[in-house]
């Protein structure tokens, strides 16, 4: 490894050759020059240094490191079209030798990098016609969606906007032609909108009365759904407790000591548990009672987490008659609002 510290450039000039011309004449030499901006001998300004580096980069190689730790060289021409690498090189001075490679963003794996290099190398050649370029692009895009997503993430992180635009269009075509379920499968995104999709509150920028009332109704409905879920959970817990008691009983029965006492104790346990359960269910019923009114409360915006509840049932049944009556009344009002919002020119 050549240690190219300050004296070296001067040695070359002494030999009658400038470092730049040497690099130009021998591109394969992989000259790793590192110009130190500080120091009295080197009076070049920051811009000149940057320009020098760029010029050198064009004809020399730059060391980079992909996300798996692998260090490799890339030709200078690639660096000049890749804003991120170029900027990093100028800013940190890295990339000139194997020990100091420029670290690439984590989205860039070696396989993806080679694809990107393949793309850039083709387009950098001035000799290709527009038709050739277009057919190359089409071929390049004919790959599976996984790879396209990897490519676009990597290209975006490297700030290669033409490539990002190209892949965006390809992915947009894929999205266009797929249903939402297919999209979720292809892109492996979670279906975390189910409840909100159906019950999303409308934004109310100017505090429209109708929208406010509609939001209140939606909030009530959402709350009821939550209570239903809690009810379900309570029932589940009940079952579990029962299970445990049976097991305990079995153990106790199988156990030798103090059978009767344990049985009595467990009986008492069961009774007390039953009492507790009754109390719980009555408290749940209390919650179901719609006397607790929330007037003028706008439901939280989508960003707050209500908990992504996966309700398969849309219609929730209420045992409480009072609630039903009110719900029917609200439904009537809401239907009216919905009609008004949908058909603005009802007048």
């Amino acid at each position: 490894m050549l240690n190219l510290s300050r004296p070296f450039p001067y040695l070359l000039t002494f030999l009658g050759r400038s470092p730049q011309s040497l690099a130009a004449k021998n591109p394969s030499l992989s000259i790793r020059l590192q110009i130190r901006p500080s120091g009295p001998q080197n009076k070049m300004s920051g811009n000149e240094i940057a320009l020098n580096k760029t010029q050198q980069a064009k004809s020399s190689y730059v060391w980079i490191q992909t996300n798996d730790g692998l260090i490799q060289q890339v030709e200078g021409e690639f660096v000049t079209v890749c804003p991120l690498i170029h900027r990093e090189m100028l800013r940190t001075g890295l990339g000139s030798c194997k020990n100091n490679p420029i670290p690439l963003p984590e989205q860039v794996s070696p396989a993806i990098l080679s694809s990107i290099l393949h793309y850039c190398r083709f387009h950098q050649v001035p000799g290709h016609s527009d038709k050739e370029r277009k057919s190359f692009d089409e071929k390049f895009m004919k790959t599976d969606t996984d790879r396209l997503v990897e490519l676009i993430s990597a290209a975006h992180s490297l700030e290669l906007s033409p490539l990002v635009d190209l892949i965006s269009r390809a992915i947009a075509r894929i999205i266009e032609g797929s249903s939402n379920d297919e999209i979720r499968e292809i892109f492996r995104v979670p279906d975390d909108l189910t409840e909100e999709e159906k019950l999303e509150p409308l934004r109310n920028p100017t505090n429209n009365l109708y929208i406010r009332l509609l939001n209140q109704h939606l909030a009530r409905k959402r709350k009821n759904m939550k209570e239903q879920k809690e009810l379900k959970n309570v029932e589940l817990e009940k079952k579990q407790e029962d299970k445990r008691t049976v097991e305990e009983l079995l153990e106790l029965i199988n156990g030798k000591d103090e059978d009767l006492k344990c049985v009595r104790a467990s009986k008492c346990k069961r009774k007390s548990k039953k009492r507790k359960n009754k109390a719980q269910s009555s408290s749940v019923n209390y919650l179901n009672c719609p006397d607790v009114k929330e007037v003028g409360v706008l439901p939280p915006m989508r960003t707050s987490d209500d908990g992504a509840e996966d309700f398969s049932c849309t219609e929730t049944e209420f045992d409480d008659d009072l609630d039903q009556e009110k719900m029917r009344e609200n439904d009537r009002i809401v239907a009216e609002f919905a009609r008004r919002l949908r058909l603005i020119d009802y007048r």
Partner: protein
Amino acid sequence: MADTKFIGKRWEEMETDVLVKIFKELNMIQLAPVSRVCRSWRLACSDPFIWNTLDLGLLQSNFIQTRASPYIWVDERSDKRLTRILRVAMALSRGNITSMIFHFNLYMKDDHLSYISEWSPHLRRLVMPAWNRITKVGICQAIRIWENLESLTMPSIAHPPYIMEEISRSCKNFSQLKVMGTFDMHFASAIATNLQKLKVLSLRCSIITKEALLYILNRMDNLEVLNISHCLLLEALATSGRKQVRSELDQSILQKASRIREFFHCQSSSCTTCKRMIEDEGLMRWYRYEDWFWRRDEVSTLDLGDYGKLFGKNCVNSLTA
């Protein structure tokens, strides 16, 4: 493969920026279902990068001209279609729209106007050349909500002062006005009285009276850009019967205009646009010419450019189905 461990992470963290770039390729109708895929996708669907300009310049009303006010009759289906489109746009954009562009044959009603003003209160630019079915109350209410309005393209109306007053009252950053139609003293004085801070004024392809032009040049001290290209400059507006006397841009006008940073004018007999103006006797019949013709302006900040991807030709077709 060494990168299998990274794939899981990559999926969940597909950057919003990347998603936004992809969604920018889709139109409004395609974006609606996409916004229901998952939470992060919904957020990306309403990004300002996609919605900063809502260009409905390809949407026209199905209308006929009538003899009585408002001289336009639009069929109900057309109105409903507009409502549907606006509803989708407002829901998806989530208040991120800063520019709205409408066609000169899109005759919207007060209801539509109040809807878009409520759901896009941060609007900065409005291009709406058709006010036939909009009432004074309706437009003033909308202007009141649009406090950040900076640029307006409007048709020539009979009594402009009320709108100018409303703008000066509500829109503190208002600086650009484009008028399509006839520009007389009435208009000129309304602007001079209420919109002293106006920086850009375009009257291209209109009829202007010489008096009005001079008034503007004398009284608008903050005017930096004035466009009177292809205008028919008249001595006075013709009352019935009398033939209109056309005027030229004489030295007095040119001298007064010299203080304005950018003065666009064109009164050439060889210019296509000027020829069209003469042929149409000053009231340019935009519908006879190319799609993009009415969208042009010599002033770069007023020129409308391409339609963008949000509402393309296929959107109109898919909606009429």
